[in-house]
């Protein structure tokens, strides 16, 4: 590898990953809300399944802690209960879900970005070989346009916030 190529490789390597690191950290606020949305959907399905199970397959047993003899009251008729959050916490499945959703989002996001970049690179190399320099400038321009978009978006969000 030539010295020039090695320098270019090093520069791109550092720059792409630095950008990745900071972008992801900065965008985490939005990703959190996305994760929460997915988690909510998953937890809703789980709660519905539990309610279904309790309603149709089991009789409900309620333990009154205040009774001296710890009396149990059983209902013969099916009755839906509110979700048992303590039980859900004990399951621990949501921790795994949270991390798996976060990593899936990052993988999909990274793969999609890379696929688009590789497609543009191949188009630049094979079809528009003479214009690679122009495409690079267009890419830089695109970066600046996205930056301006973020500034405008941030300003709109700030003005909307109470």
């Amino acid at each position, binding site marked *: 590898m030539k010295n020039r190529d090695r320098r*270019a490789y090093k520069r791109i*390597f550092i720059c792409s990953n630095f950008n*990745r690191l900071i972008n992801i950290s900065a965008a985490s606020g939005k990703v959190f809300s996305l994760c929460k949305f997915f988690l909510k959907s998953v937890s809703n399905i789980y709660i519905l399944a539990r309610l279904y199970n309790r309603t149709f397959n089991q009789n409900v047993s309620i333990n009154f802690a205040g009774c001296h003899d710890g009396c149990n009251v059983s209902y013969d008729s099916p009755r839906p209960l509110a979700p048992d959050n303590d039980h859900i916490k004990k399951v621990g499945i949501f921790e795994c879900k*949270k991390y798996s959703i976060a990593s899936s989002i990052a993988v999909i996001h990274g793969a999609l970005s890379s696929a688009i*970049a590789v497609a543009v690179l191949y188009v*630049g190399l094979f079809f528009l070989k003479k214009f690679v320099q122009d495409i690079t400038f267009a890419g830089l321009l695109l970066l600046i346009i996205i*930056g301006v978009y973020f500034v405008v*978006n941030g300003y709109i969000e700030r003005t909307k916030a109470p």
Partner: protein
Amino acid sequence: MLPDFAIIPLLLTGSTLSSQQIGVIIAVFISVGVATLLAVVAAASLIADFALKKVNPAYFDYLVSFLLFITAVFVYF
């Protein structure tokens, strides 16, 4: 889920590199993304007063735009 267009000029600048080197860049690009996001999510779960939760989302936008400008300048020169 919007793709990150910041990688396009970076890969275009490296058009002289081999496909293997481009592959390494993409693999590290994705793994750094996963590692960072997992670290942020873990920190938010474990630390009750995680600073990122309290920051106004508009400031994240400003930070991202600033970093995009810096990246553009860095790639150009």
